[in-house]
């Protein structure tokens, strides 16, 4: 695999990325190839339209939110390190090798990512309106408004412990404590 090492030179900070995210060299290469594929006009960075070209993502009910999650606050483009960092959130955690601290850390990181999908205004809380928007996009046109309202109401009732009519991150985490997040939020192709 001599060619791979030369290709790795094209990737800036590859070593650092591998350290940070835990991806293997092969993965970084694969992701870089994918990145280049998505980057149609070869700018070295991705824009929302590049993501939007993926049909599956365009038809995804929360596709725009997922795309938005790649872009950090205020930035209009995604460079390769950020791309990889976002994807690193979805690496499956090996339960044998990570001790307790590491495992819960990765779980928290995954949950934070999911939380950010809801919390578009980044105020640290999922308000009722934000929840409603997500519900609306997921349920599409199949329910009436009052159904949506009652569902959102119920969800907030269940999770909201400090009665501020919004779901904070801690409450979010608590409401999902029975769900095996590590399993659900990993794509084992990113192992």
């Amino acid at each position, binding site marked *: 695999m001599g060619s791979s090492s030369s290709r790795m030179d094209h990737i800036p900070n590859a070593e650092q990325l591998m350290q940070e995210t835990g991806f293997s060299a092969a993965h970084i290469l694969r992701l870089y190839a*994918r990145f280049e594929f*998505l980057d149609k006009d070869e700018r070295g960075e991705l824009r*929302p*339209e590049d*993501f*939007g070209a*993926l049909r*599956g*993502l*365009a*038809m*995804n*009910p*929360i596709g*725009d939110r*997922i*795309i*938005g999650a790649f*872009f950090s606050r205020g930035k209009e483009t995604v460079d390769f390190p950020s791309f990889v960092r976002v*994807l690193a959130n*979805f690496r499956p955690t090996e339960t044998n090798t990570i001790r307790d601290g590491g495992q819960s850390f990765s779980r928290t990181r995954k949950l934070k990512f*999911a939380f950010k*999908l809801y919390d*578009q205004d980044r105020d640290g809380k999922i308000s*009722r*309106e934000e*929840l409603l928007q997500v519900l609306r*996009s*997921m*349920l599409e*046109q*199949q*329910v*009436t*408004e*009052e*159904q*949506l*309202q*009652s*569902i959102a*109401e*119920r*969800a907030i*009732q*269940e*999770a909201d412990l400090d009665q501020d009519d919004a779901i904070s991150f801690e409450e979010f985490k608590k*409401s*999902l404590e*029975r*769900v095996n*997040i590590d*399993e*659900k*939020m*990993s*794509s*084992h*192709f*990113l192992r």
Partner: protein
Amino acid sequence: MAALWTLSPLLSACLFWPTCLALTPGAEPLQPQNLPLSLGFNSSDGSPSLDLPMALRVFSVDYHHVQAPFEIVLWIMLASLAKLGRVPAVVPESCLLIMVGLLVGGVIYGVRHSAPPTLSAEAFFLFLLPPIVLDAGYFLPGRLFFENLGTILWYAVLGTLWNVLGIGLSLYGVCLLAHSSLGDVSLLHCLLFGSLIAAVDPVAVLSVFQEMHVNEQLHILVFGESLLNDAVTVVLYKLFESFLRLPSVSGVDVFLGGCRVLVVGLGGLFVGLFFGLLAALTSRFTSRAQVIAPLFVFLYSYLSYLTSEMLHLSGIMAIVTCAVTMKQYVEANVSERSNTSIQYFLKMWSSVSETLIFIFLGVSTIQDVHMWSWPFVCSTLLLCLVWRASGVLLLTAVVNKLRRNTVTFRDQFIIAYGGMRGAICFSLVFLIDDFPKKRLFITTTIVVILFTVFVQGMTIKPLVELLDVKRKKRGLHTVSEEIHSRLIDHLLAGIEDVVGYWGQHYWKDKFEQFNKKYLRRFLIRDDHQAHSSILRVYQELERREQRGDEEAPPVVDPRSNSRPLLPEEMESIRRILSRNLQHFNNMQRPAYSRHTLHQDATMDRVRKPLHRHQSLGERYTYKAQGEDGEFKSSRRGRAGLSRSHTVCSMSPRPVLQDASVPAASAPARGQVDPNSEASIEEQISPQQQEAPLERSARKQLSFVLESEKQP
């Protein structure tokens, strides 16, 4: 309760009276039937009658006329009464049923001094097995099944092959060693025996596992394997049987045999698919004859089974595929009552079937056909256990590398130990062509079945507790969990799209889109497609609240945060979520229990809504729009009015009448179509305006098209 157990000898006493039984092959022919009222003629049927010399009979008993149905009913009655008895917790139900069967068999034998009726293979395969498999397939948790499909196939196909070859060859070795007594058992015979004894039986597995609450993944692995290995078993059995008839076996034959496995399995699958889709289509037109709608479900499933049996394909696979395919469409098309009927009937039939099978197993044990041989029987038992354990260990070691959720050692133990043999082996062994050692095979099979059901069945539960298998998490999901889980599913699908690999989510989403675009449109009745669950819940909520306002339909008061949600309401919310969030699996307890339906069915006492509610919805939306100016500020909707007012308050813009593409004024808002029942509003975050704008426009357009379909 003990009294019920004494009823069984009474019933068996009734049963020994007739001289033949419909279920026994090669029984004495039925005596000639007589007219029930034989005026003036002394009947020569031998049935006891009052000894009146005169022509006219006032009272006569003509048993032979009703003999066949009478006995069948008596057997079923015995089975059903046996179910009423309360069983001690440590003994699984299957064991008790076999014991009842043994008792009845013993009584019959003792009274008649001849063999009691046996379970004929035909009756078993044609009448007793299909209801059980249909029930299992209908209530299969689809999503879980498909997620684990690779592993299940791995265990089913490869595991069974490993077991068959292993047991067959080892037994041949044993026969060679004990040449004196077992010398005339050839290799092919051993392989044939191996093929029928190696297969895990779904009936036995189900009946034992449902009493243990293991986690769903484990359950689906064992259960799925027992269902799918039927294809392999059927093929190998028939293969070896035909080899036995051939003068010689060549390599080509073996290769052809391998191809047959594929053909049998896939053939069964396609037959099932075909009939499933046909059934779904038929159910679309049953609106005028609601009462017979359930019948179609049963008829089509049974047809698929019979067709594949006729073509020598795997009947079990066909019927399972049929059930899985047609379930969602039938449930959408057919009224609530019909749905409940379907479910109840399935449960009932499968329950009775299962009971009958186990009782007959017990009865058939008491026979004259036994031949005992210590080395053969003991080595068979041992080899079954050893080969299964080794097979599971090896296969799991390989499959764990590819699975996300590894199968732990404890799970492996349960899979290996829970591989029980049942009535399928029993029937297959009877079908073997006669040869000198056939009776030995029969005896060994019975011993193996009894051993697995009794010993393994009784000890598996304590062993599970000992090993502390990860228990299935009890309790239903909360609404939050469902929403968030679904969000994460979508998220993963999106991420995998970005990464470009086809994970499981990819196929699931693809299928769901295909399903929604083509299948659902085609197979589900038009007016049922979008509104069923909405309006049903709508009506339910309406009934719940009984608020004074007549125009605006009453909804849950947003202020009442502390009001505990009624269980029915909770159920209705769950129903919406589980339907509309396109979940495959049943959110309720996995309904493998023979005796209870999942709660879903019992909640549906509400009939399908009428168009009246649609108009209510329209009026409601109008009213909401009129008042939205007032409630701009109350984002939280604490003004005590219905919810959608708060939603409408988010769009201070006046409602536009046409649903054309929104002008590119920033920030663009969605539009409300007054003809529809739901209003869609898309809030576009300032970051991405361009791509989502087109998406929302597309959505609006498609939404308009959808709403125009409404009558």
